[in-house]
């Protein structure tokens, strides 16, 4: 992770992170003092393809 930050420093930029999904990644970066914005996200229906399909069909019917 330290090498990762060095890469951005060498490129002349400050590392700022938007983290999507796994919160532990954001927590690790925060512990290193890296500015991080965590976005809580998980695949619809926990990744179950059949329930995701049903959700999509119901949403299509309801126009949402």
């Amino acid at each position, binding site marked *: 992770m330290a090498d990762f930050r060095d890469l951005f420093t060498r490129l002349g930029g400050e590392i700022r992170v938007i983290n999507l999904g796994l919160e532990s990644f954001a927590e690790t970066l925060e512990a290193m003092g890296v500015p991080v914005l965590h976005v809580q996200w998980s695949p619809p229906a926990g990744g179950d393809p059949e*329930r995701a399909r*049903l959700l999509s069909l119901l949403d299509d019917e309801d126009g949402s």
Partner: protein
Amino acid sequence: MLVDCVPAREALGLADRTVLHSGPPLAWERACPPVQTAILCAIRYEGWAADDAGAQRLVESGTVKLAPCHHAGAAGPMTGIVTASMPVFVVENRPRGNRAFATINEGLGKVLRFGANDESVVTRLRWLAREAGPLLGVALRVAGGLDLRALVAQALRMGDELHQRNVAASSLLARALMPHLARTAPDTGAVAQLAEFIGGNDQFFLNVAMAAAKAATDPCLDVAGATMVATMARNGTDFGIRVAGLGGRWFTAPVNTPQGLYFPPYSAADANPDVGDSAIVETVGLGGFAMAASPAVVGFVGAGGLRDAIRITEEMGEITLGEHPHFRIPTLDDRGTPVGIDVRKVVETGITPLINTGIAGRKPGTGQIGAGVVRAPLACFEQALEALARARGLA
């Protein structure tokens, strides 16, 4: 509107030798010990059997029938026991023309709703039926009913969330009732005893809030195709939901055990799994959904501080259809509480409703041992989603 308090026999048409319990339908053999204990105690209270052994024989032979409160128009806290002679509050949803019912809250500690069953429990139940219920009924009729929506809205602004904290709502109700009680009671001693009982019970309003929530949500069970949750209830074995677009059908899954704080000397090892119809208040945007309105309760149920309370209310906003137009939260710039749980949003996000709850001891006769929070099981909502899709010919 809170309009009356009359025996369940009269209000619900509840027959003798029937015991109503909380949650979805439940066979005697599957009931947890506090629910079984409370059922037997209620049978003794009614005089249908002299002791628990005789009471159990009546249940096992089918002479005494068990049924969910929700099937009879009532909502019962914790074990949710209702029998014919118990007085029930009557709440009327005037725009829709329906009514819902709940017993008088017995107070804290050793009480029937938490599965306690000794003589003090039966004595209190008899006083409620013979004295408190009739006094409350007359006072409410003379008052012409009390506007509960306004009372609940005001209590939220005073720090209640109307599930584990009802001190403001109970006080407001007492304030509204007392003049009518004083005018109609046969003697000052009776008023004093009832006033002392109400004043000593911070959860007195909970049952009224539950009846009000049921009166508000029951008409939703007729809205074809709707994906909104109309009922959440637990019987100590199963958690059940009913969905607006699917009528009275229950979708059930094994109930979770609450996480919370315990009265000394109890601990999590002594806790009974989640039980009670009181989750009906979360269904209308109160309780855990209104946690941000009640910084005092979030600590009481062991869920953190004000920031955590706001986070919980905002999280419940992820799975609801809108904000309540009347129930507003001062700490959120007067935004409405999140209301209308959408089955689709629960399944899509995996965020399950959070419920504030009392915790009953699993050992029969113990009573309440703490308070905490519990999540509804996701499986109920997954089943409901599939049923909704089938009902529309999509699956």
